[in-house]
Every structure is written in structure tokens, then in C-alpha cells.
């Protein structure tokens, strides 16, 4: 599985993120000072992820999944490395327990 992550451009106002930040504030949470909301696309492919497939996904990410006027494609990666990230997170939370 290929994961594509798209975020609103940092210089643009993200009203959805701003509204969420307001809700966080009302919960009494003070450590969070900013929220931005983006999108994560999970693309499943038929067969192995070849360089050709990745190139196609990159083009799709630029042409359809994001609009370069208002958004940036911040990441395109295989889900396997995402799994690795999850494991790292679990390890980190294990330490704090």
C-alpha cells in the first residue's frame, strides 16, 4: 500500500484546523498551540510497487490528489515504513508507562 499525505499550504489559513484548536482550548488543553488538518490517501496497488508505479502515484498526487495552489504533497511512502513508525511510537509510549 502506498500512502500519500497532503497538507494545506503553511502560509494559508486552515479554518478547520483553527476551529479544532478552539475546541482543544475549551477542553482545557494548553500545551497545543496549533492544529492543521490535512489528508491521507491509502492507495492499494495490484502487484509489486515498482519505480513505474511510484512514478504514476507521484503524478497522481500532483495532478489529482492535491491542488498545488492551496496544498502541498508532504509525503509519499510505503505503508511498511508507516508500520515501522507505529512500532517506534509503541516503544516510546511503553517507556512512559
Amino acid at each position, binding site marked *: 500500500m502506498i500512502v500519500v499525505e497532503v497538507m494545506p499550504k503553511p502560509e*494559508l*489559513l486552515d*479554518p*478547520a484546523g*483553527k*476551529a479544532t484548536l478552539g475546541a482543544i482550548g475549551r477542553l482545557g488543553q494548553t500545551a497545543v498551540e496549533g492544529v492543521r488538518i490535512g489528508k491521507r490517501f491509502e492507495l492499494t496497488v495490484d502487484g509489486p510497487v515498482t519505480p513505474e508505479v511510484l512514478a504514476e502515484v507521484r503524478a497522481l498526487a500532483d495532478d*489529482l490528489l492535491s*491542488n498545488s*495552489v*492551496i496544498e502541498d504533497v508532504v509525503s509519499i511512502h510505503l505503508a511498511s515504513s508507516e508500520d515501522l513508525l507505529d512500532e517506534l511510537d509503541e516503544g516510546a509510549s511503553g517507556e512512559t508507562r
Partner: protein
Amino acid sequence: MSRVGVVTFPGSLDDRDAQRAIRIAGAEAVPLWHADHDLQGVDAVVLPGGFSYGDYLRCGAIAAQARIMREVIDRANAGMPVLGICNGFQILVESHLLPGGLIRNDHGSFVCRDQRLRVENADTVWTSDFEVGEEFVVPLKNGEGGYIASEETLRELEGEGRVVFRYVDVNPNGSMNDIAGITNARGNVVGLMPHPEHAVEPGFGPDTDAAMRSGVDGLRLFRSALDSLLARV
């Protein structure tokens, strides 16, 4: 009689109002379906308001890939008049027929109001019956109508007089430079967030000083296009 097509996408809302506006303006309204690839020889096309594809992905992004849009884009690039209203404007920017983008209103809320606009360019196909500087009122209703563009694009739009309509009194959605509508370099493609098709018939338009709901200024966009088409013949 001129024939003006109105494309219906899944989730279009204002297609029938647009058809009605075209008929009241004196042309034949031709319903077009998003999955067709035949514009049926129409002289102009209106992309109506609504929530095509439920605003999935981005407003207008999926509609921009609809089959009929290939032909709309080709004909628009060849000079056919195209008007995008609200979601239609969003489809035009996603189709790259117009520059910039439309994002969620800066205040985060859906807004519905009678909106005063100023005409900044009376040379487009859709504004030829107006005078520059003239003001008029039509309804506006959107959640993602904030016009944005890069500094370079904004400079280009302003420098070339391609801002067609600007919000007056209130900027309802945080649009840069109070931009309500823009045109392409040729002046045949115009997109705007407010809804001229909802101000075409006494009894159903915005209030005016003369009488409640008597505003019919929106009709003039459609009349402009018909006059331009007749002048071309």
C-alpha cells in the same frame, strides 16, 4: 435562438435555476449530463452551483475530471463562453481554465446573504452589458468561497484587469483583494462565487429599494453573453 448548455453533475443544485435564467434571458437552455461527451452544439456553457460529488477530495476536483469537461475545456480554449457559478467556479479553477483556488471561508462558517458586487471588467463575454464601476446585488451562499492565489497570479490578474467582480461593503469569505469573480485572458471564461441565476425574476431575487425580492440584476450576465453571441453571428 442561441443555445446555452447547463451541465448537471451528481450533486449539482442550481442547474435548473441556471436553465431558467437562460430561458428568461431569451435563449434555449440545453441540459447536459456530466457523463456525456457531447455538448450538443451549444453556443455557451454554464457550470452551475451545488456540491458536485459531495465536495469529496476538494470542491470541484472530481467534477473537473468528468467526461464532459474535456470537451468544455477544449471549446473554452477555442473561445466558447463559459460561466462557472459557485461550485462551477470551483470546477473552473480545478480544470485550470481559471487560475487560483477557493478555500474554506476564513470565518469557518457557511454564509448566505444578498451580496453587493462591483463590476471591475465590462469587456468579458459575461459582463458586456455592465459599466465598469457599476454595483449590483445577487445572492451569495458558500462555505468554501475564499479566493486565493499566489502573489504572482494576483499581480497578473490585477495588472491585466482580469478581476471581474469585487465584493463591496462586506468580504463574506476572506477572499484575497475582495475578489468575487475572475476571467481568463480571452474574457470568454468567467467564474464567480455569487449566484446571478438566483436574481432573474421579480418575486424571487434579493430585496431592492423599490420592493422586496425584486432584484433581477443577475439576468444581465446571461443577457451579456447572448448579446455577445448575437454580435458574433
